[in-house]
């Protein structure tokens, strides 16, 4: 019952935030909302757009859940997403002769590995050198961005043509699409299945339990013979793997080539998706759908009014702030739990 109330409260809070944001910027409320709805759900193309945008948000958001649940503030989804795509493009550059179907799958695998290594680096830096993950991942985001820019202008640049893009993947290596009219691709199933797998992993396996325990109470974990450091590096690697996979899916499903604007802030936008999903793998499905739809809707809205596209950041940020306020309100209704950790 309580979770239903929570869900309704959060949904209403989100709607209110959206309306308030539109009003603050002087956009007509009714027409703007209806344009957002049309862009997101108004047609087959609209629904496809929403689901296509939901896919990277869900995958990278699940990555955030795994890290944050272990107490690692991975802000580096963006960098891991980019490195994932880059690793995939590097594989294609090195082994263009692979059979297309194998190539497609291998790209997804190596992009997950690339993201995992990039995130594990940040985890290792915290454990062994005391560099906070929240800081190192932010710095690594910028480094990945410039690395991408370098690669598409240099070593990975396409052989034909003059554009700063990587070579285009053969069609057969690309993820399957459902219809020629829309971009909707198999990645959405991959993302939803991954959400179920992460749910199972986190709540029904021993490593998943350790991740949650370490995130909630390090001392209890240590007292029970669990090494928090190991668990946290594992959580970071898994987190990066999912963000990298999101990059690989984006690469093999949509353009088939990388440019310097390969990631449209997916790794960054995934953070509020994860937070509003309550850091619960299943909660992320509605939350990523909401933001995917909102992205598709504001995309459409921006054809009619200037500044429609950037509004999404404000809506997301404000939504998280409102959510934090709501959480406080929920907490107050429950008996006060002594937080011994904060006192010692």
């Amino acid at each position, binding site marked *: 019952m309580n979770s239903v109330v929570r869900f309704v409260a959060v949904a209403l809070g989100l709607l209110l935030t959206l309306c308030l944001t539109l009003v603050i*910027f002087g956009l007509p409320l009714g027409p703007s909302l209806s344009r957002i709805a049309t862009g997101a759900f108004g047609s087959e193309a609209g629904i496809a757009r929403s689901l296509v945008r939901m896919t990277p948000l869900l995958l990278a958001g699940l990555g955030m859940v795994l890290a944050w649940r272990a107490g690692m*503030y991975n*802000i580096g989804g963006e960098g891991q997403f980019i490195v994932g795509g880059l690793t995939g493009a590097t594989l294609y550059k090195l082994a263009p002769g692979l059979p297309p179907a194998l190539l497609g799958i291998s790209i997804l695998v190596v992009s997950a590995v690339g993201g995992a290594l990039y995130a594990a680096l940040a985890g290792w*830096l915290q454990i*062994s*050198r*005391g*560099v*906070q993950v*929240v*800081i*190192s991942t*932010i*710095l*690594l*985001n*910028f*480094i990945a961005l*410039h*690395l991408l*820019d*370098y690669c598409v*202008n*240099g070593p990975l640049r396409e052989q034909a043509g003059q554009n700063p893009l990587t070579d285009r993947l053969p069609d057969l290596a690309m993820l399957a699409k459902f219809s020629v009219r829309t971009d909707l691709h198999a990645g959405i199933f991959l993302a939803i299945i991954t959400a179920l797998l992460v749910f199972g992993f986190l709540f029904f396996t021993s490593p998943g339990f350790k991740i949650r325990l370490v995130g909630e109470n390090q001392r209890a974990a240590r007292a029970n013979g669990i090494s928090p450091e190991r668990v946290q590096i594992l959580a970071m690697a898994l987190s990066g793997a999912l963000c990298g996979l999101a990059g690989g899916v984006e690469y093999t499903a949509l353009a088939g080539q990388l440019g310097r604007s390969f990631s449209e802030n997916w790794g*960054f936008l995934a*953070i*509020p998706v994860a*937070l509003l999903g309550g850091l619960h793998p299943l909660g992320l499905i509605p939350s990523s759908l909401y933001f995917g739809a909102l992205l598709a809707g504001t995309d459409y809205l921006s054809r009619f009014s*200037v*500044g429609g596209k*950037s*509004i*999404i*950041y*404000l*809506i*997301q*940020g*404000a939504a*998280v*702030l409102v959510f*934090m*306020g709501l*959480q*406080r309100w929920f907490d107050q209704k429950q008996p*006060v739990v*002594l*937080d011994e*950790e*904060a*006192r010692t």
Partner: protein
Amino acid sequence: MIESLISVLLFTTPLAIAAVGETVNQRAGQINIGLEGMMLVAAYVAAIVAIETGSPVLGIGAAIAAMIPLWLIQNFLTIQAGRDQVVVGTALNLCAIGLTSTLYQMRFGQSGQLLSVPQLPRWGGIDGMVLFGLLLVPVLGWWLFRSRWGLVLRAAGEYPDSVRSSGFSVARIRWEAAAVGAVMAALAGAHLSIGVGGTFVQEMTSGRGFVAVALVSFGRWRPAWVLAACLLVGGAEFLKFYYQVRQTALPYQLFLALPYLVALGVLVIVGKNSRAPAALAQPFRSNQ
């Protein structure tokens, strides 16, 4: 040579002012991930007000005023409601990007026309903010380590319980530290648009707020060391403009990434020798 040094000082100033403000914040037990967003809002507000009134000084004033709502929202959630500081800061950054980009696009259109913003007057390449930044370091250093207020503030970051049992309010001290941090963020952001750049572009802070947060730990939570760290990164930032003049065989992107690489590199080198305030990023609940 002198000219290069002056340029490095100019690039260092916004970083240093933000980082020294963040030092005060972290000493009181708060990590302000929202620093990036605060600087961005300040840069935008200062630029717009300077354009409208023709006065860069009014722009600075407006940037400080613009911090009030951000300061209230952030610290209501972190101090009063005990919410996670990293989460609140991240959300604040998203809001700042959305707000400034949307307002900018509504005002100037999608096209990237180059804005010209009235700049602070310079003497020999240095403006008032550079001097202020240099002065700020000893002043805040003295304040943190030699004054009663600083002692209580540092205690709030190390062992808040002792602060409370001595009859001080941890919440109040943290609100004050956050106010210092917010004013510094305003000055740093404003200096980016009306001091260093003379323009505003979307997301112009490009991670400087994050780098400032990182440099606080590199500077071991001491203003003078933090300034030294900022000079290092400011120097790295200057190199990319230097590169535009003199071509080298190294890829351009390496120079763009250099400030972040330097920041990360020094953190790795300093490593575990540094010790953060014990209660950093932990909410304090006085109702226990």
